[in-house]
């Protein structure tokens, strides 16, 4: 029998909160939600809002390109060595939930190469309403939907809307043009989520990401407490 648990190499268990050298690892926050809801825009805005005080890196999970990573690079929200793209084999939800090994590798490589880091944002490839992150990969998850995808999405629920640690309803600036009722979205979300928080954002406005950035700062304060 091989029951020896004294690992000397890298941590085998993904949820370990310490790195192999005993220091605290970065807080990992996942951002999921349908394609086009504003995940990459939220990641970019968070980096701009937080990067002066917090050491951040980003992992993207594109479905078939490196488009998200390329967008972040082009907009220079972080130095290139702090952005890693994971390839998902046409199955973005598998890479964040059922088989998280490539994402864990990316997260650890970032900590090894540019660490110590305070925060790693993991953006999912964009999927349907059922895609959530494994607890073995992230410590907290944000689900980003938008008002243009239909104001009945909070009512429809699904694991992302119902269980994410933060629900972001983005693109509120578009609500008048697509006939979305923000009050109804807020009521439906509250009914689905109980006490879990919901914020409304418009990333076109100045500091539009502030409610999400504030929530991230609270999570970081809890993590380092």
């Amino acid at each position, binding site marked *: 029998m*091989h*029951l*020896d*648990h*004294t*690992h*000397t*190499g*890298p941590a*085998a*268990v*993904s949820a370990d909160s310490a790195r192999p050298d005993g220091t605290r690892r970065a807080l990992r926050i996942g951002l999921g939600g349908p394609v086009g809801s504003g995940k990459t825009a939220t990641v970019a805005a968070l980096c701009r809002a937080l990067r002066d005080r917090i050491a951040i890196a980003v992992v993207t999970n594109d*479905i*078939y*390109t*490196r488009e998200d990573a390329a967008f972040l690079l082009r907009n220079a929200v972080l130095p290139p060595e702090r952005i890693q793209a994971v*390839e*998902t*084999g*046409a*199955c973005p939800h*598998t*890479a964040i939930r*059922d*088989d*998280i*090994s*490539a994402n*864990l*590798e990316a997260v650890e490589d970032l900590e090894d190469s540019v660490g110590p880091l305070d925060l790693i944002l993991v953006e999912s490839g964009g999927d349907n309403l059922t895609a959530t992150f494994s607890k073995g990969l992230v410590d907290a998850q944000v689900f980003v939907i938008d008002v243009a995808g239909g104001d009945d999405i909070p009512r429809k629920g699904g694991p992302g809307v119902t269980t994410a640690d933060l629900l972001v309803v983005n693109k509120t600036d578009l609500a008048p043009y697509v006939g979305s009722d923000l009050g109804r979205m807020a009521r439906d979300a509250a009914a689905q989520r109980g006490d879990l928080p919901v914020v409304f954002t418009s990333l076109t406005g100045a500091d539009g990401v502030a409610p999400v950035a504030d929530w991230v700062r609270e999570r970081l304060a809890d993590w380092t407490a």
Partner: protein
Amino acid sequence: MTTRAALLVLADGRFPAGGHAHSGGAEPAVKAGRIRDARDLEEFCLGRLHTTGLTSAALAAAAAQGLDPLALDEAADARTPSPALRNAARRLGRQLMRAARATWPSPELAALAEARPRGAHQPVVLGLTARSAGLEPADAAHCVVYETVSGPATAVVRLLSLDPFEASAVLARLAPALDRVAGQAAEAARHGIDALPAASAPLLDISAEAHAAWPVRLFAS
């Protein structure tokens, strides 16, 4: 035999070791028009089985048997001329190592992880994983030959929207050949590192190099 279920756990496509993001060369073969239907898939798999499959299965059997994993890792490098495929094999080896140490921890796995923190070749890690799970060299070889063909089959279902029943039928038709190649691999491993097969597939090597440079692709390899 009390280890059969452990073999199923290890061979299950849902075992979280990163394989889902790799097509085993099927993506470039589809793009080049070499795989268009189930019959092409079967031929592709057969070719892969008798080349890469045999070589990898023998490496895994040798590791499961207890031959030096670092020497086997070098033997795997020598048998993998394409840098893109070496890179993929080491990445997959590192990912499998994580899953293996969480499922069947052993001092031998820990030692290999420490000696090759960036990953040893996947078949070597697989063989050592099988050993840690109490499996036989022939089990490790079976596991490798099966993933040699099941990886491309799954990928082709996604790439061509091939009927999944047809893809499974292809795998079933290949089963006798899989058994034979696994047997050859396990037998070769009994004769030591220098006797391990070195069958290669130049077209897979060349297309892997081209694929690694594509700007847009669904699979990592």
